[in-house]
């Protein structure tokens, strides 16, 4: 879609507008009730609190865009967390080595998922359910109960800040750039095509197996980063550190505007979803509301985000048709496919998304 600059801008911002608006509203509310939030210290805390979910959600979003679900994200983080807490030494060399190893383990985890889904053709939800048991078991083998530790230097690499800029922000910027670059490669295009309509994609020359495996490996790479950050943040190991994060990661993906029927959305927008979640928690805390309400509020926001995802497109299309400016393009707008209905499942059902990316 090389067109007028305004159209290119529209394409670039497509799907991001909603999450950005929601995040903006919450940020303003937060700044009003808690002006101290604007201090460097608070901003670093906000980033450190959101980054694990943000990184994991980017990975999960890639799998979702490719038309699958990855339930193994939690135990993937756990495995990487305990490996680092048990084996990483105090020397810079050992720490650098283990950063690379953690990313490699992440890719390996993705590779196993990818092989099960793409080559053995096991539905992703089942395959990743099994691998989540598997890696949970491996995590317990490495470390039976919470313990281990990592050095402060290592923690600071991730959770510190330079001249008021949180390192986490830099990391997330790099991740966003990496994703935006991948999105333009053959792999990125294949991921979107497979998630949009697998049969049509294959008929149009997308190589199913390498592309799906690639999607899971890429997701694993980001789980590796999330595991590194998790370890830096907690500076200890816990074989069940990632388990409770699964639902939160999915919430972040949906809040980021990624369609669960695959093929639509932007993985980097899941970062925004993670921040929305953290800010909701912080705002409620600042207002003195019991933390018991947090999950009720989060769930309600999730449902509202879904309703907006599914039904928002209808309003937007109506408006566009009404003004007649972009009427011709209304068909492949975001709103068409979040159908949600009973067939809205992994690897199927969504209308073909043609020629956009």
């Amino acid at each position, binding site marked *: 879609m090389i067109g007028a600059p305004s159209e290119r801008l529209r394409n670039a911002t497509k799907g991001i507008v909603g999450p950005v608006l929601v995040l903006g509203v919450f940020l303003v509310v937060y700044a009003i009730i808690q002006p101290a939030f604007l201090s460097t210290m608070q901003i670093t805390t906000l980033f450190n609190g959101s980054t694990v979910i943000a990184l994991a959600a980017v990975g999960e979003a890639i799998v979702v865009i490719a038309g699958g*679900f990855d*339930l193994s994200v939690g135990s993937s983080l756990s495995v990487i967390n305990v490996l680092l807490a048990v084996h990483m030494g105090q020397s810079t060399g050992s720490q650098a080595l283990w950063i690379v190893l953690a990313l490699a383990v992440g890719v390996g985890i993705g590779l196993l998922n990818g092989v*099960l889904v793409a080559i*053995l053709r*096991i*539905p992703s*939800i*089942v*395959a990743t*359910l*099994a691998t*989540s*048991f*598997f890696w*949970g*078991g*491996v*995590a*317990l*083998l*490495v470390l*039976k109960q919470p313990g281990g530790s990592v050095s402060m230097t290592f923690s600071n690499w991730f959770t510190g800040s330079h001249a008021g800029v949180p390192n986490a922000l830099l990391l997330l910027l790099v991740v966003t750039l990496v994703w935006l670059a991948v999105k333009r490669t053959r792999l990125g295009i294949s991921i979107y095509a497979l998630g949009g309509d697998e*049969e049509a994609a294959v008929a149009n020359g997308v190589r199913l197996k390498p592309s799906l495996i690639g999607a899971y490996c890429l997701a694993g790479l980001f789980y590796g980063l999330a595991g590194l950050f998790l370890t830096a943040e907690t500076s200890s190991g816990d*074989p069940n550190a990632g388990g409770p994060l699964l*639902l939160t990661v*999915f*919430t972040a993906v*949906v809040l980021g505007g990624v369609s*669960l029927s695959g093929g639509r959305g932007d993985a980097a927008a899941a970062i925004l979803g993670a921040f929305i979640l953290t800010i909701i928690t912080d705002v409620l805390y600042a207002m003195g509301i*019991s933390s*018991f*309400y*947090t*999950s*009720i*509020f*989060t*769930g*309600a926001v*999730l*449902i509202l985000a*879904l*309703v907006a995802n*599914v*039904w928002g497109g209808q309003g937007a299309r109506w408006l566009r048709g009404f003004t007649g400016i972009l009427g011709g393009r209304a068909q492949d707008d975001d709103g068409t496919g*979040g*159908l*949600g*209905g*009973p*067939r*809205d*499942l*992994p*690897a*199927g*059902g*969504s*209308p*073909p998304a043609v020629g956009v990316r």
Partner: protein
Amino acid sequence: MSHTVNDDAASASTTSPVPRDSGEGGSATHPGVVLRRMWGNRAIQTVLAVYGILILLLLLSRFINPSYGSIGFVRTVVGLSTFTAVVAFGQGIVILTGGFDLSIPSTMTLSAVLLTGMATGSSAKTLWVIPLMLAVGAAIGAFNGIGVALLRLSPIVMTLATNTILGGVILLYTNGTPAGFTPPVIIHLVQGRLFGGALPEIIVVLIGFTVLGVLLLNYTSFGRRVYAVGSNPIVARLSGVRTGSVLVGVYVISGVCSAIGGMLLSGYSNQSYLGLGDPYLLLSLAAVVVGGSSIRGGRGYYLGTLAGAVILTAVSTMLAGTNLSQGFKQIVYAVVIIVAVLAVRQRE
């Protein structure tokens, strides 16, 4: 919308080359014809394969430990599998329509904490508390169903959101620590034995539940509509099935099953605790899949799911009796699920 219709029709023609499983019950009368037709039905072959795996598993288990595979062992395993089997019925009927119910864990925990909190160990109070819990489960299911059917939200996320919200409700009700004890009548139902200890009461519960479940799914018009919606929602709607009410119906059933499962589980542990239902999200999904149902909907039998639940419980019971570390147990468990899924997989 037209391309959506084509799309669905295309996927239906590729995913269901076999004649529809539903509605075959009444037409054939000659027993030989019925038998031959059953034998030729791939879905029934799958269920038989699941039972084959179960029997093989029990036979092989004798090599691990001579006490495994005995009548007593089978009795324990079948009794323990009730919790999974009950909630997997709900998960299974939702999956038949092409959805998922991820709100099972919190619904189970909520019904358990409400039960112990309200009945406070009194059997007399169960007269109104148990019906109330079933109603709570049904209401949760209706909430899910309305989101999925009316608002057309993705089932996986709708039920995920419900699960998250209920998590908060549980914390609010219990204030972090569940109170009270399970009423003796429920404890007796779960832990008691009939015929001088030969037959655990929970197995009677399981058999009764299974009979009801099979009747509902395969011998009522509601059951036929569930399969129809799962095979192809568009065709179902065009043939006059009110898909919306069927969808709400299956989520309500799943909610009620979760409430039953939660109450039974509190009878097993004599009290309720936070996170009581948590393992059952993955267990219910695994039981349905190992039981040979298609995860994409439209195909599957509860008898398969039941065998799936027993297989999973048998494996975890056997593993519990070994000296393997918890980590190894979990790894073996994962491998068993993958192997079972590959073994019973229907050629799609």
